[in-house]
């Protein structure tokens, strides 16, 4: 009978455990995010940066960690605001480490945009790192890196 008196505490503890477990699971399922790893060596990327060293951390590139089909991989690139006067994003370019054409896309904002949040679908020729580079009106350069494992590569090289 004494055991029956304790369940409220025990169950609260169990609930905390379950919540913690859920949080760990959720963290493991999060998509690949930018980290502080060095930029992959892509000649086109180096040419685009032209010697400028991008800041990592503010620009966010979301790609799945594991993509089943490299022919269409969901991509999202975001730059959280607010942007100071004259510090808005003017362009965001995407570079692939393994595609035959490394520069995948470039998005431009001819007018200052309050919300920089772009989604598209990219082709990836194999497991690789993808780099997004944002250039601000004031000249600041931001980058984000995402690593993707591709099960079925887009047949970009004819193989």
């Amino acid at each position: 009978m004494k055991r029956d008196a304790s369940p409220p505490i025990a169950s609260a503890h169990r609930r905390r455990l379950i919540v913690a477990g859920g949080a760990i699971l959720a963290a493991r399922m999060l998509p690949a995010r930018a980290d502080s790893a060095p930029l992959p060596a892509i000649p086109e990327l180096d040419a685009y940066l032209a010697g400028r060293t991008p800041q990592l951390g503010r620009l966010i590139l979301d790609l799945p960690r594991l993509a089943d089909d490299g022919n269409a991989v969901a991509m999202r690139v975001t730059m959280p605001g607010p942007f100071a006067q004259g510090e808005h994003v003017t362009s965001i370019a995407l570079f692939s480490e393994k595609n035959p054409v490394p520069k995948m896309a470039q998005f431009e904002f001819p007018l200052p945009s309050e919300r920089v949040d772009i989604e598209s679908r990219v082709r990836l020729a194999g497991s690789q790192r993808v780099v997004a580079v944002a250039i601000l009106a004031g000249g600041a350069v931001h980058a984000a890196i995402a690593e993707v494992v591709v099960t079925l590569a887009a047949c970009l090289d004819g193989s």
Partner: protein
Amino acid sequence: MAASRVQVPAEVRRGDSVEVKISIRHPMESGFRVDDSGRRIARNTIREFTCRYNGKPVFVARLGSGIAANPYLRFFLTAAESGQLSFEWVDEAGERGDALASLTVVG
């Protein structure tokens, strides 16, 4: 040319960020594929896409073979006045496509 589908909110408030989604039917031929007789299929992708809001360009996308077939784009613009959104794109063969959507701004 290619058919497309555009999605914008029916009504937005002034100053709001407006989500714009567009999907365009286009093979985005990479130039690395071969046909049944082994001949290389010429590269042909949409190279430039422009969204104009009441005539002013607000979003431009320069695409290539790294973008999936039937390209889908989602972006945001800031609501100012009621009016028209026009979308225009051109592929490497010089073919153009366009689409229109109207935006109603209240408040």
